[in-house]
């Protein structure tokens, strides 16, 4: 195997984990864009999705497709519930209260999962044929291919939703100026709930893809994944949808390259170093809107 094919394969590895980061980062970015909240419970929504997928398949012997749909629906409902129960009552509070609440929700979900399912890892049965697809000299793992394709389709669909639909227009309006949007007759509460629903549905898709690639569910699996997706969102420019995608892929590929260079222990360090550098050099990220504070 030549060096060239190895590099291509490493890029594919990076794209696969990057797609998952991108999907999760989208949820972060959309929520931040609309209510300026860093929803740290977002990673744990993915964890719940993984447990739903595991429960459906291992406990109820459901068809993988049904399990996946259940996971996505479960995540969507959970995302909306979290918004209604934890964030909505604090809409008028200082943003720091919201942030602390988000961290609280994150710990709450992790500990409930540990209480209900135990601290052990649960293995999700494999449901995708693992035979790699041969493209010339390069064998592409089926899971990698499916992950990238599904993530790509989800992102295109999201773009259409935001750019072409009435609800998308409302989302953009609320994120631009919530007060003015309300004056124009937009129901802000519904729009915010809808944003959480879409973000969490993406997290649900992310959790299913995550389970394809790393088929085990643990109570804390969401925290590191969530943090890295957060870095991806910041790198891309928080609040920006194309930025979140680009950031996710960049983080995934950076991780793959660091690991393949034999520095796997430094992988997390590199990701967070990226966060620090971005915040120091270009706080608005690659594609973020320049923030002009009105005086």
């Amino acid at each position: 195997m030549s060096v060239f094919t190895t590099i291509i394969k490493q890029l594919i590895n990076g794209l696969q984990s990057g797609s998952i980061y991108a999907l999760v980062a989208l949820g972060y970015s959309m929520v931040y864009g609309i209510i300026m909240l860093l929803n740290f419970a977002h990673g744990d929504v993915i964890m719940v999705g993984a447990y739903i997928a595991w429960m459906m398949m291992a406990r109820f012997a459901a068809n993988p497709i049904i399990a996946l749909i259940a996971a996505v629906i479960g995540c969507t409902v959970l995302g909306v519930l979290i918004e209604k129960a934890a964030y909505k009552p604090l809409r008028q509070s200082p943003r720091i209260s919201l942030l602390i609440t988000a961290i609280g929700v994150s710990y709450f979900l992790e500990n409930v999962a540990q209480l209900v399912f135990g601290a052990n890892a649960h293995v999700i049965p494999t449901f995708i044929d693992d035979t790699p697809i041969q493209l010339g000299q390069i064998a592409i793992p089926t899971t990698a291919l499916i992950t990238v394709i599904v993530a790509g389709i989800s992102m295109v669909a999201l773009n259409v939703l935001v750019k072409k639909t009435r609800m998308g227009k409302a989302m953009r309006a609320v994120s631009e100026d919530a007060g003015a949007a309300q004056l124009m007759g937009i129901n802000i509460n519904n729009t915010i709930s809808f944003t959480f629903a879409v973000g969490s549905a993406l997290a649900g898709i992310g959790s299913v893809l995550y389970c394809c690639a790393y088929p085990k569910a643990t109570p804390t699996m969401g925290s590191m994944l969530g943090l890295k997706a957060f870095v991806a969102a910041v790198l891309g420019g928080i609040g920006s949808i194309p930025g979140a995608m680009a950031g996710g892929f960049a983080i995934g590929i950076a991780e793959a390259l660091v690991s393949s260079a034999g520095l796997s222990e430094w992988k997390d360090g590199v990701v967070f170093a990226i966060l620090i550098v971005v915040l120091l050099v270009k706080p608005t990220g690659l594609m973020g809107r320049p923030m002009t504070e009105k005086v």
Partner: protein
Amino acid sequence: MKRVFAMVMAVVMAAVMFAGCSAGGNNNASNNSGSGDTIKVGLLGPHSGEYAVYGLGVRNGAELYFKKVNEAGGINGKQIELVVYDNKGDDTEAVTAFTRMVDEGVTALVGDVLTGNTLAVVGEANAVNMPMITPSATAAAVTVKEDGTVYSNVFRTCFIDPFQGEKMAAFAAEVLGVKTAAVFAQTGNDYAQGLADAFKAKCAELGVEIVAEEGYAKGDVDYKSQLTNIAAKNPEVVFCPNYYEDDGLIVTQARQVGVTGTFLGGDGWSGVKNYASADVLEGSYYCSGYAPASTDAVKQFEEEFVAAYGKDTLNMFAATAYDAAMIMCAALEKAEETGYAPASEEYKQAVIDAIRTEGPNVKGITSEGGYTFDEYNNPIKDAVIIKVTGGEEVFDRMF
């Protein structure tokens, strides 16, 4: 009323004092009879508390063999008298119990069980040159002092962790006949690194080339980048000495990125079948100290053990304790030939010498090839090779 109470108290106190005296008397009596027609052997371990399952396994396993020897007439006509103490898994208790055993005139010790307790006892045991065999303490420091010299009186029947690495390297070279190998071990984990280092050293000795060496951090779930590097070198075997949860994910992802070599592991693999599909695990091997119902000798031991003590404490340490008792009896037999009195200094030294010379002839249930002790008093013995096939972990061979 007060007077009655005082009377009762006086009687109780007198009774307690009397009981204390008589207990002391018994101790003295047994102390004097140390050189009589019995040989006293100590059995020390945690028989209560959270580690009781190990301690009781060891106690029952060793007792089973000693009883058999006694029923067959003992050693040189002398019965073995077991002096059993429970250390409750506590270091201080372990040392206290050991001191009492010495006072009671034991000649040899089977134990201690937990690594920490054993470390606490070895110093004391070395000071009185007490022959001891631990069936279960795996830390290297159990037989080697901090300054690097060996505790000449301390032996063990379990193998130390790095030994598994050597075994798997030898297995790869001699049984699988491979020429190239890769290593994938968790960074910063003493167990995984110990096995990996031993594997690499043995491979160098046997002419197996290590073509790739990768690591990963604790908590990682994505190993594809490192595994892609390994796949690029196309090794015939991949040594993966980690714990079962990680191993399952590693093997699954390795197959996805095109690693075709056979996977090898250590006893951390036990239970891996639940963490990856049967297809990806097919044909992997790992080694262990003991496999239930593997050989005829093991089956016979298990039957006898269950008949005497039930199933609850039947574990690997029961088996290695049975072997420890077997070695101890062989050594005592040899020491009896010297004619010294049991528990004398000369006798204890004779037992220590005999453990070395007789060990290789002891066909233990976990090592049919006998127990040869290396320069650090660690056994060079057989390992159980377990093959993962059809989604099950099955006994393959003794190696």
